[in-house]
């Protein structure tokens, strides 16, 4: 569903993403992890067609995101960490607007079901300003899922959600994956990645330093068998100097 070949993104002299290559099949959930400034968000933006790659290609459902942008974008949804909404449209007007943009014929039925599933059906006539952070996130998700995307990108999907919201979001992501969507999740929450991702890709300074299942990555970076904690592996993989360096101690 997603094919990335030699993706590079440069800002002047600065290399944000370098020679990134990977692919993703239907039903897979890929966790994109890395320290701040690793290039996660830039990668997702290139994959969504928001910013053009400097070099390399990105194919979504067999369509090039640059040359055949319309066909590629019809198949994907991108959820940013901060819900981006139109402040003067109500919840239902958002769905109505998105339905026209994506030409979703049966949007009323799908939209109502999505609002029910996300538990914001009672906020149908509310403006974003009247919604909590979590509800805004849910509205953004309802808009993104309205056209039944086959490829979904999440950038920090759990930000601002309450514990119940987090549980539902995890279930929702896994449900979409079971239904055949290819999903990429960028997150600092390693326990989330460990819990729901079938594959993990670790980025550092724009370069891929690991890509595989948790077991494969563990095998590559662990010092002893059975050491399968992603947090430990993450620190080892992304540490600058010592392979086994521990995170800095907390202040007393």
């Amino acid at each position, binding site marked *: 569903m997603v094919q990335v070949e030699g993706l590079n993104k440069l800002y002047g002299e600065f290399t944000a993403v370098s020679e990134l290559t990977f692919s993703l099949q239907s039903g897979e959930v890929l966790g994109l992890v890395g320290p701040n400034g690793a290039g996660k968000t830039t990668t997702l933006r290139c994959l969504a067609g928001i910013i053009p790659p400097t070099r390399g290609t990105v194919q979504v459902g067999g369509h090039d995101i640059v040359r055949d942008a319309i066909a590629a974008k019809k198949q994907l949804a*991108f959820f*940013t960490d901060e819900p981006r909404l*139109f*402040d003067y449209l109500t919840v239902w007007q958002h769905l109505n607007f998105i339905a026209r*943009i994506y*030409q979703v014929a049966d949007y009323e039925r799908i939209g109502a079901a999505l609002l029910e599933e996300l538990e914001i059906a009672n906020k149908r006539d509310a*403006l974003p300003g009247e919604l909590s952070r979590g509800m805004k996130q849910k509205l953004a998700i309802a808009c993104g899922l309205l056209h039944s995307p086959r490829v979904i990108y999440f950038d920090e999907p759990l930000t601002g959600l309450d514990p119940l919201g987090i549980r539902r979001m995890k279930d929702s992501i896994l449900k979409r994956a079971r239904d055949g969507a290819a999903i990429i999740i960028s997150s600092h929450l390693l326990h989330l990645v460990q819990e729901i991702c079938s594959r993990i890709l670790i980025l550092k300074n724009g370069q891929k330093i690991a890509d595989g299942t948790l077991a494969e990555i563990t095998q590559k970076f662990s010092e002893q068998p059975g050491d399968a904690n992603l947090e430990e592996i993450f620190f080892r993989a992304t540490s600058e100097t010592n392979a086994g360096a521990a995170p800095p101690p907390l202040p007393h």
Partner: protein
Amino acid sequence: MVFALLYLQYHTFRNRLVSRFKRLKQPKYLIGAIVGGLYFYWYFFRYLFGGFTNGRQPGAHLTFPTEHLQLLELLGALVLFIIVLLAWIIPHERAALTFTEAEVAFLFPAPVTRRMLIHFKLLRSQLRIFFSVLLLTLFSRRFGGNAWIHALGWWLILSTLNLHFLGSSFARTILLDRGISNRLRRLLVLGLAVAMVAGVWIWAKQTMPGLNSASITDLGSALDYLQRVLTAGPALYFLYPFRLMVRPFLALDATAFLGALVPALLLFLLHYLWVFYSDVAFEEASVEASQKLAARVAAARAGNWQGAKKNRKAKRPWFNLASSGPPATAFLWKNLIGVGQAFSPRLWIALIVVVVVLCFSLGNAGFHQHVSWVVGIFIAIALAYSLLLGPQLLRLDFRHDLPLADVLKTFPLRGWQIALGEILAPVAVLAAFQWLLLVVGAGLVYYLPGKREALFLAIALGAAVLLPVLDLLLLLIPNAAVLLFPSWIPTGKDSPRGVEATGQRLIFMLGQLLVLTLALLPAGAAFTAVFFVLNFTVGAATAILPASLAGTVVLAVEAGFGVMLLGKLFERFNVAEENAS
């Protein structure tokens, strides 16, 4: 403690000034500062420093004659009376001294007394008043008079008003605490105001000839009548405190100023004591107000002035949007909902009703010829301003949505589809406003002396055809500018203020004028060619419509290319680089 607050005030001001100077290292601010500085010097400062043309400042001929100073004082007092009246009628919330969120977070839990906070607020408002005084003095100085007298006069007026607003908000809170609702308060104040106006009206009717078109022949006689009504009878007493406030500003020399200063200062002092001794709990409302202020500032910085103005309410769409059809219509639908926050159908109907009722009432009162000409001139000016200012004021297009550019870029649409959709709503609103003016103008034709209906109607029809395409073209320019130079135009990142921002706006206005002139040349040529050919055969009135159509076609072709170009600009617009810059 007071020194800590002074320290905060001083360093906030100083650091803001330093950051303004530091950003002059960026060419966009430096060029803006130079152009803005030249503008301020040319229009204001050179008069302040005595650089008058031929020894006298332009506009000095507009100085009011000495015998009318009393009238000016009365008019000033009347304006202040209305402002104060509105301050007692309109607000509905409890007393809330607006602090920033940081001030609330640091000062409210600190061991600072309530009165200290009030003094801090007053001190901070003095900084704002100081700049207002500077600008107002620069402006009023152009019409002659002593700069120091003007400055001190403005300061007294603004400072007393500031204290009055604060005092009235405290009084409002006390009334609410004592069970007097906002509605009851408004009824009482409005009732009192109506009684005062009725008193003046009845007194004027009994002691002076009635107001009609026969007795009032020109502006001079109208002003004389107004002066006689306001300087005797009940109005004299109602307006007296407000006249005391205005008097220092209008003083002709230092002696007169000092004479007027004492009562005005006394009034100011009374206001201060009123505020100082009001023991009203404002903290809770202030916390809420500070949050609203922060939201308004964020909205304004995002170029969303409607969001900055008031609490939003959900609006119905202007039409139903089907899920199939041209995607550009979705943007029109969306942005019209946003425009609906300010321009509701109710407002349009009210506007039409007011204009029609006013015209008919004045027409029936025997003013119809005057009214026709005045309204006709007003319509012509309003049309010109709609073309000049409309595209600047109606910003529900890329200028509003650019902070959401990353969302727009994920849509499966071509650039030109998004571009066209984004600018359709302001075009529709502008065109609707202009057509309304044209309809009223066409109706007025029947009142005009020496009727030439055919010619006037042909002009109105020609304008109705031309204007929407011209609006489209005019809106393309600022939208292209915001995509080409996003950091120059306030969108979601920052909203520069000050001299440099004024300069930037001036540069853009000149650029817009230049581009518009170039775009209008071919359309003007097409219009002229068709008009001259047909004028000789079928006459001017008949020639106008085909000529306008020819001009419209040329403009439409240009606008079509413009939309394609705007779409390309949006496709190339690099969200990440702009965010990084």
